[in-house]
């Protein structure tokens, strides 16, 4: 597969540095992420990283592709302070599956 198998979605200031890595970088503003992700999936992108702030917006899309092997939709932190959204998401998934919160954080 070509280089377009990997894409990163986020606000311009946040994900700009990823341009240098050769990945496909798509700048979106609030409210545009769903369309951007759907377009990328149609193009055949297999791994899509998006910044955590879009996690709520993309909720439905995430649920839709949850049971499929591709594409992988993975939230990445923004680097602007620590938001726990991504960790919370994983924790929710595990809690639902296992029935107990085994994803405890060491503190």
């Amino acid at each position, binding site marked *: 597969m070509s280089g377009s198998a990997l894409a990163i979605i986020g606000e311009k200031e946040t994900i*700009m540095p990823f*341009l240098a890595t*050769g990945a496909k970088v798509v700048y979106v503003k609030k409210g545009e992420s769903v369309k951007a992700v759907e377009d990328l999936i149609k193009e055949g992108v*297999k791994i899509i990283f998006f910044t955590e702030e879009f996690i709520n917006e993309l909720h439905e899309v995430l649920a839709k592709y949850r049971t499929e092997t591709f594409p992988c939709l993975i939230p990445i932190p923004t680097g602007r302070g620590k938001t726990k959204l991504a960790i919370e998401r994983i924790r929710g998934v595990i809690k639902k599956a*296992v029935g107990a919160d085994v994803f405890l954080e060491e503190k």
Partner: protein
Amino acid sequence: MKLDIPPTRMQLLRLKRRGAIARRGHKLLKDKQDELMRKILELVNKIRETRLKIEDDLRKAFGYFYFASSKQIPKATDEALLATTKIIEISYTTERVLNLQIPRFSKSISGRLISYGFLSTSGDLDLALLKIDQLISQLLDLAELEKTLELLATEIEKTRRRVNALEYILIPSIDETIKFINLKLSEIERGDLTRLMRVKEIVRGK
């Protein structure tokens, strides 16, 4: 809950067979559930470590980047980033874990990361980009792990529902129906016997 089945010998045989199959299915699914659970617990720790590490590294990298972009004119940053000759190629395969298709990624990278002039860019930019470049492979690992986790989690949910349906609904109701048919059949047999005895008595009394 008793199944709505006529109490005949034929149905009794069929039910017994169904019961045996249900029990076998239940055992298999239960084993599958245990295995899935073991796998998911294994994954959880790995994911937590990877994610925390990535978050840490990414924050550092972004930190450098913000420093860099505040030191130089925005256009220079844009140019420097666009000038990269790096091409990242990702190939993917799937691996089977039980009945699931788990993604596996591998990457090949070609080109140079830093292909801009040093005059208009600050040294922090180099640091930031180097860090982020290293992160890409970790991010791929994370993508793989998290997808696996999601798939496993959905499968566990499904399997658990099936196991429970078999264990608490289907198998008990089959058992109950078998018992009911057995009782009914022996009741009919007893009825036949007494009727026969009665008839014999009447015949003899004649």
